[in-house]
């Protein structure tokens, strides 16, 4: 194990995979000579050269489509979006081409490609630079959506995503890039996609939280522990396919569930998880499922407003107390 920043863990995953498979290349804005807008790809141009680390003009539609065509023709691209907010300029490529070409071609062509970059809110960036995209991409058959919460998972999940034969949307976070954590340096450290991680075991309430929200869940669990309540914290790690079985097993034990999700609430990940829980574990629930999400508005700029916009630890804590009828 070595202590790495989140960005270093992602870089390590890319470097290790590129060393073992020369079909892999990284393409995006500022990934090469600038060393990455968030320094994720720092040093990679020097190591792999300009053939495999490729700067682009500001043309998300163009270079996403380029990646898809290259994947159809035998390569394994990693396409970096400077942020996933900019992926909306390329959403036609991701949804209509990457996700559907295998199906439309009756399985003749596969599209092994990773679209990766920071997702979700990152402070006072206002409405167009603060979108959580996971529920948008997770609704599309043909895509996989991965959202790691910590450096170790980021490395293992990204290696799995790069090796996957399907298009994968891999969601990072600007505010987590500097986060440090112990990261496996085992050769071939790969975490399977579609498997949730029960981070903490508990008997009283299940908290489901991915990405940044995972860290709120841990704090809430700590506070509850001081009061003698055991929270079971589940990090889904992968949004699509979603590991509902692990969540349902937990609810059969705790009978209560709180979901923390920084998407806007309508038709979001939390909506889907809650639906799937009631479908599979209705009789085990002792309270309505609660969720804490971003507010149902575009992200505002003002400091107090954007803080209020985001899921709040206190709200999550109170929701847990409420579903336990302990408030």
């Amino acid at each position, binding site marked *: 194990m070595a202590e790495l920043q989140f960005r270093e863990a992602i870089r390590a995953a890319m470097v290790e995979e590129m060393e073992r498979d020369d079909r892999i290349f990284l393409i995006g804005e500022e990934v090469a000579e600038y060393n990455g807008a968030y320094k994720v790809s720092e040093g990679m141009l020097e190591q792999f050269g300009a053939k495999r680390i*490729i700067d682009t003009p500001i043309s998300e539609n163009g270079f996403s489509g*380029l990646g898809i065509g290259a994947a159809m023709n035998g390569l394994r691209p990693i396409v970096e979006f400077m942020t996933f907010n900019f992926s909306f300029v390329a959403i036609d*490529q991701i949804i209509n081409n990457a996700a559907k070409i295998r199906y439309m071609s009756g399985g003749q062509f596969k599209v092994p490609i990773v679209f990766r970059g920071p997702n979700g809110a990152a402070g006072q960036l206002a409405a167009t630079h603060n979108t959580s995209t996971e529920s948008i991409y997770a609704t599309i058959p043909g895509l*996989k959506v991965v959202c790691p919460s910590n450096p170790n998972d980021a490395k293992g999940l990204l290696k799995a995503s790069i090796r996957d034969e399907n298009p994968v949307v891999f969601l990072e976070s600007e505010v987590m890039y500097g986060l440090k954590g112990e990261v496996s340096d085992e050769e071939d450290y790969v975490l399977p996609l579609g498997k949730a991680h029960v981070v903490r075991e508990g008997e009283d309430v299940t908290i489901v939280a991915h990405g940044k929200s995972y860290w709120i869940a841990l704090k809430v669990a700590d506070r509850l522990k001081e009061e003698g309540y055991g929270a079971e914290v589940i990090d889904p790690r992968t949004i699509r396919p979603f590991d509902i079985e692990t969540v349902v097993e937990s609810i059969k034990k705790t009978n209560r569930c709180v979901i923390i999700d920084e998407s806007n609430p309508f038709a979001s990940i939390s909506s889907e998880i809650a639906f799937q829980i009631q479908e599979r574990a209705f009789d085990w629930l002792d309270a309505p499922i609660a969720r804490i999400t971003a507010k149902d508005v575009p992200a505002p700029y003002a400091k107090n407003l954007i803080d209020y916009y985001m899921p709040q630890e206190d709200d999550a804590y109170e929701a847990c107390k409420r579903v336990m009828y302990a408030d």
Partner: protein
Amino acid sequence: MPMAKQARKTAASPRKTTASKAGAGSGSSTGTKNGTENPNDLPAEIKIDITFPVYAAGAYSHKDVGVDEDTVMSMYRNMLLQRRFEERAAQMYGKQKIAGFLHLYIGQEAISTGTATAINIGQDSVITAYRDHGHGLALGMTANECMAELFGRIDGSSRGKGGSMHYFSKKHGFFGGHGIVGAHVPVGIGIAFAHKYKEDGGVSISFFGDGAVGQGAIHEASNLASLYDLPAILVVENNQYAMGTAIHRAFAETQFTHHAVGYDMTAALVDGMDVFAVTKAMQDHAKLAREGKPSMLEIRTYRYRGHSMSDPQKYRTKEELEAKQNEDPIIRLKKYIIDNGISGADALDAMDDEVKQEVLDSVDFADNSPVPDLSTIYEDVYEEDDYPYLA
């Protein structure tokens, strides 16, 4: 590899010159990031003086494009197959054997056949939009798999999942068959990128209609192709109408070759009613592409049928249509074959009968092919076979 262009463009030298771009001079100081030119040193005037070649109808014989008489006959058969296939498909649409969209290529067959003649099928790649029957059949897809796909049957090329707009044939290097106007052209550039990356000598040809030129995807793809020196040909099949919108109602610049100038790319204008003109243009530009010089071809053609089966065609006159039908690429080639003593009218008619029978047989094949089992709906979504996730 993609950096090569950048290095060159940042050098303090004029933009690239090709044989067809004479004297692009004083207005040409591009990219001076590390160069010695001061970008604030303005030239006295901007002068653009560029010449692009024109591939005119009747200008080339089969010998000029290096094909023998047998090949001429197979080109003729290839064009006939597309024509008879689509005529029969239109009839089957009327009989409700085919549903959804059906966009016919009738009138444009010299482009698909000329291309298939010029390239190395298997090594090179072709991608197009939804008017894709012609390209698929020209590259070697069978009438059987194509008709079965239109019928929505399991023996269709996409197992009944794609329909008219989504023909694909991996073994022929045919990358589809795409439904969103212009969106497949960045993909075509990516296919070219992979040819270059793998150093397999392949060229990627992206066909799109005049309507697609209005899409931003074409702009981005054109720039990337030129920036990265990709082995790509971007082909505007200018049939003069985007659905019902004539080109002059959609584009400020209707000479599409002029659009190439903005991407520092060479271009040519081609008469798409003559298969040898198309073949020659494709040969020349495939050669350039293999040398890392992408290009843009405007091929003037004409779509005899409506945009789709539901198009009343009120945007053009009967006279215009009839005038264009006199330029029919199949009639032109037939006349060429007879005039040059390659074959006689009887033999050509016999060939036509044979093709018609092949197409009729494909209707039988499609009719007899089973509909896809409902269980196949979950196949081909992901590589894994454990789908659906939501059981």
